[in-house]
Structures are given as structure tokens and as C-alpha cells.
């Protein structure tokens, strides 16, 4: 009889250890994933001087784009240094908002469009934007796993004993125009292919 009780106790203790390990290792993984975002952002920012040098000759009049690019690079550098995931997400979005105008400027300029170097650079830029997106997704997924386990039975027992708090992940405002669909958006758009 006491052997059975010891057996049950052993299983319980192992379960507590396993669940606790999940929480703390999850936290460490999330931290690493945040650093990954910084890593990818830095890579993106490092491509910008290349882009500037190969296109500056042709895009002399697009002064605003280059000024914006310099600002974005500075924002990324300071965000990565701070290690704050929210700052990094914002800096990433800042750069991402400039990319469309760069693309348009390149497409409008026939010499740039034909240049293999510039085409490759644009491909690399788009790839780095993808990488930032995936790095952010990883943070979101890991945080979701953590938060789900934190509130599910029976792992929430361990969470409450060791006081694990809910992690914010990437903060997206839960109210705002990106989660609302305007009445105009529900109508099928008319595409004019002239």
C-alpha cells in the first residue's frame, strides 16, 4: 500500500517539475525569439546603405525617401540596442512603410528596373521584410503557448503556485481600425484593367 502512495507522489512531483520547466524554458525561448527580431531588423537596416549607393545616382530627386530611410535605420539601431520588443516592432513597421515607395520609385525608373544589382537588392529587401515577419510570428506563437498553458487546467495550478504572469507578446491595440471592417470594405472592389 505505501508503495502505491509513493508511486503516485513520484508521478505528481515529476509532473510539477515538467510543467514548471515548460514555463521557465518558454520564457527563455521567448526572450531568444525577441533577440531574433532584433537580429533580422539589423540585417534589414544593413541592406539600406547598399540600396542607397546603387540607386542614389538615379533617384537624386527622391530626397524624402532617403531621409526616411536614414531615420528608419536610426530607429532600428536604437530599438535593437534597447532590446524592447515593442520598440523593435514599431521600428520595423517604420521601415516597412517606406519600402512601397522605394519599390514604386525603382519600377518607375527604367534603368533601375533593368539593373540586376538593384533587382537582387529589392528581392533581398523583400526577403528581410519576410524574415522580420516570421521572427515576430515566432514571438507571438511562443507567447500564445505560454499564456494558454498558464490558464489551462491543470497547468494553471503550477502557474499560480510559482506566480507566472501573463506575457504581453507583441502588443497590438485591440481596438482600432485594423480590427474593424468598414462598410465600404465589405463591398466587392471594382477592378479597372485599362
Amino acid at each position, binding site marked *: 500500500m505505501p508503495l502505491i502512495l509513493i508511486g503516485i507522489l513520484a508521478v505528481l512531483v515529476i509532473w510539477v517539475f515538467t510543467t514548471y520547466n515548460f514555463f521557465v524554458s518558454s520564457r527563455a525561448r521567448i526572450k531568444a525569439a525577441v533577440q531574433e527580431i532584433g537580429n533580422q531588423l539589423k540585417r534589414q537596416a544593413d541592406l539600406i546603405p547598399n540600396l542607397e549607393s546603387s540607386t542614389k545616382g538615379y533617384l537624386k530627386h527622391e530626397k524624402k525617401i532617403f531621409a526616411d530611410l536614414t531615420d528608419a535605420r536610426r530607429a532600428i539601431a536604437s530599438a535593437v540596442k534597447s532590446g524592447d520588443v515593442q520598440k523593435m516592432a514599431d521600428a520595423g513597421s517604420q521601415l516597412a512603410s517606406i519600402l512601397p515607395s522605394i519599390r514604386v520609385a525603382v519600377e518607375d525608373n527604367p534603368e533601375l528596373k533593368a539593373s540586376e544589382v538593384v533587382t537582387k537588392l529589392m528581392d533581398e529587401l523583400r526577403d528581410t521584410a519576410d524574415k522580420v515577419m*516570421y521572427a515576430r510570428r515566432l514571438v507571438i506563437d511562443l507567447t500564445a503557448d505560454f499564456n494558454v498553458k498558464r490558464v489551462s487546467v491543470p497547468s494553471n495550478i503550477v502557474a499560480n503556485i510559482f506566480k507566472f504572469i501573463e506575457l504581453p507578446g507583441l502588443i497590438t491595440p485591440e481596438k482600432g481600425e485594423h480590427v474593424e471592417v468598414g462598410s465600404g470594405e465589405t463591398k466587392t472592389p471594382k477592378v479597372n484593367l485599362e
Partner: protein
Amino acid sequence: MINVYEAASANKRKSAVIIVLFIIFVTVSVYILSQAMGVYFGYEPGGLGAAGIALIISGFMSFGSYYYSDKIVLSISGAKEADRNEFFNFYTAAENLAIGGGLPKPKLYVIDDSAPNAFATGRDPEHAVICATTGLIAKLNKSELEGVIAHELSHIKNYDIRLMSIVSVLVGTIALLADFFLRMSFHGGRRDRKSGQLGAVILVLGLIFAIASPIIAQLIQLAVSRRREFFADAHAIAFTRQPSGLISALNKISADHEPLEAANKATAHLYIANPFKDKIKSSVSWFSNLFNTHPPIEERIAALEKMA
């Protein structure tokens, strides 16, 4: 319409059920075969020693192929390492999805063949390899390629290669045990074996199992393989967050009737679609599908479209 998480959990549950049934079947088979051998040779508890030997032999045979699976499969298939500049879409899609999945980037290889197909191998995520044919890279667009790579990454992340290796070790054990039993029956046993009604029944059962269980074990192994394919499809959607890429890729792959030259029976199960394009649409197709390492593509597409 089901969401990605439900699809993945449903698949996990179903594969757990199959694996549990498989373990029960293996245990029963080993027990009966051992008991039958024991009756035959006149001692109890039976030929458990023989079972142990069979397990060890089967384990050794499979261990090398599992541990070095990446090198072996690559050398059989004639693959060469993928150059980032030459295969930019393939390379970057694999890199990016690995980041998104929290996995180290797998080694990437390319097979020069116009038949579209891809496979993944490797004993764990740190030693993982994804290989695609030049046909696949040429025929699929970026989002379809991402779907296929996500499917392969799911196999890696879920340790499917390890699972299938363990399953094949167990199948091999049963095949060997059955083989021992049948051979020993021909060579004759000890004169003073325990006879009697129970002994006779066990002997008969042993004979039935010796003949039937290797086939049944193989069928279960193929069922496990099919269930893991469904699971990898569902998990791939968790990576890419949209089913349309993989659905469209599967459509394109199934429409292409060219068989893959580099594949052979031993590596067929690793590919994303059965490289031997035998589509048997007749009344015996249900039966022949039991021997398929992959579920029929129509079923896979239907399962994915439920999530779309």
C-alpha cells in the same frame, strides 16, 4: 470549417490511437510467438530470449539507417547542396519558415529531376535536411513552395523520422520473431515438450501469428505513415497561416504524372507525394490504398480545404 489548432490536435489524437494499437499488437504478437516457441521447446515462460534477440537485431539494422539517414538518403538520391543565388526562392522560403517555427535552418539540397517532389529527413531538427527536385522549384510559385517546405518542416519538428524508425524497428522485430518460429518448427524441437490442449492451442495461435503478423504490422506501419502525413499537412498550415499555398501545390503535384527517377521503394515514404504515380481508381482501390505510404491526394486536399 475547422481551425488549424483543432486539425492538428485531431491528428495528434488519431496518431496516438494508432500507435497505442500498434504497441498492443506488437506486445500480443511477441507474447504469443514467445509462448508458442516455449511450448515447442518445452519450457516456460517461453522464448522471450528469442524476442530479445530479434529486437536487438532489428534495432541494429535500423539504427544505422536512422542515425545517418540524412547522408544515406542524399547519396542514394544524387542530391547536391542548394546554392542560395541559384535557388533563391527555395532557400529563403526554407530559412524564413524555420525562423517562424523556432527551428534551426535545415540543410537544403536539390535533385536534378523534372518530376515535382520534395522530402525531409534527419534524426532531429539539428541534423535535418530538406531536398526538393528542380522540377518542383520550377513549377511552383513562392507561396506553393512555402506550403511544401512547411509540410516538410512539420515532419522534422514532430520527429516523424524518429517515429517511423521506431515503428520500423518494431515491425522488423515481429518479422524476425515470426521467421525464427517458422524456421524452428521445421528443424524440430526437444522430445519432451509439454503437450496437452493448451500447448496445442498456443502452437496453432503461434503459427497463425507467425504468418499473419508481419503483414499486419506492416499495414499498421503504413497506417501510421498516412496519419502522420495528414498531421504534417495540418501543422504546415500552422506555419504558413494559409492553406491555399499547400492546396494549390498538391493539386499541381498530383496533376503531374511523371514518375521520379531518383526514388525507390526504400525512400518512397519520405517524399511529399508518392513518387510512384499509380492511381488505381477501381473497386479494389480501398484495399490497395492500405498499402500506400501516403493518403490519396484528394483526401489530403479535402482535409486542407476544411480549414480554408
